């Protein structure tokens, strides 16, 4: 944490103490955003789970190839991107700028690969006649929940790649410090965490049992 973060703190009996959580404001702000975003995803996931259980005729269209193989690969890629992210943050805190930027770029490549593979998954479903409003299996909500959940997550990954790109650029230029890298890492790990719920609940709960 840079020392300048604490300049300007005025001591008063009503100030609540100096930095009671020992984190800078950016990090606390990102954590609060993550809590609120996790409630957004929770609401979507819980309502999906409600629909999934309440409809015994819920479609189970996902075959090993392509859906389960691809989504498992996407999970591997996203988990690996979290590893490169955390190593990037560690490098940034040690002041190893080149190494940190390389790790950030690796994380972005993983994120892009995730989005591209996911896009091919979507195209496969479109070809089978699945849209957000209808599908061949006569449970329209299947498409609505599938595209709603995975779409919102994909949007988060896309924004994350752009965010990491901006941070990598600014950090390599010396505009920003390791704290910015760490805070962008929090966002990235959260996006990874959300997929840890979407993958089993959307894909693995609808595996074709054949």
């Amino acid at each position: 944490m840079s020392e300048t973060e604490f300049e300007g703190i005025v001591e008063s009996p009503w100030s609540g103490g100096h930095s009671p959580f020992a984190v800078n404001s950016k990090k606390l702000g990102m954590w609060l955003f993550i809590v609120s975003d996790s409630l957004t995803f929770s609401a979507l996931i819980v309502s999906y789970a409600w629909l999934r259980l309440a409809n015994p005729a819920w479609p189970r269209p996902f075959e090993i190839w392509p859906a389960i193989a691809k989504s498992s690969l996407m999970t591997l890629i996203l988990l690996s991107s979290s590893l490169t992210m955390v190593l990037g943050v560690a490098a940034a805190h040690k002041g190893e700028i080149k190494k940190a930027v390389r790790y950030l770029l690796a994380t972005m490549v993983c994120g892009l690969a995730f989005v591209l593979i996911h896009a091919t998954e979507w195209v496969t479903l479109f070809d089978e006649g699945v849209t957000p409003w209808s599908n061949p299996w006569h449970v329209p909500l299947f498409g609505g929940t599938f595209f709603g959940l995975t779409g919102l997550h994909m949007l988060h990954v896309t924004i994350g790649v752009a965010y990491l790109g901006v941070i990598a650029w600014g950090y390599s230029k010396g505009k920003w410090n390791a704290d910015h890298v760490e805070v962008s890492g929090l966002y990235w790990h959260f996006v990874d965490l959300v997929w840890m719920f979407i993958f089993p609940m959307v894909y693995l709960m609808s595996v074709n049992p054949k």
Partner: protein
Amino acid sequence: MSAHAHAIAAEDHDHPVGSARLFSWVWLWLLLLTAVEVFLAYERLAPVLMLTILVGLSLIKSALIIAYFMHLKFERLGLFLILIPAMVFCICMMLIWFFPDSVRLMHMHSN
């Protein structure tokens, strides 16, 4: 800058942040739990049991991500206390209102 702020800054730099070895172990555990989930998908379990096991494993995975990758294990307890319990409470409230109903509907439809 006050002495207190200096103490906080020093504390921030001194506390353990985890090594590449630790992070790699966490990553391996996350992969292992994912493999268990994919394996379970092909065991024909009842939907409620299946959902319970999958969400249980996902909760373990997210706890690993939050604790190690998101560093919360190494932060002050106060940060954990303002963030996590209220969030968990809100999610539990969603579950309490939704689940009894979905299970009731499931049994109603299958009869």
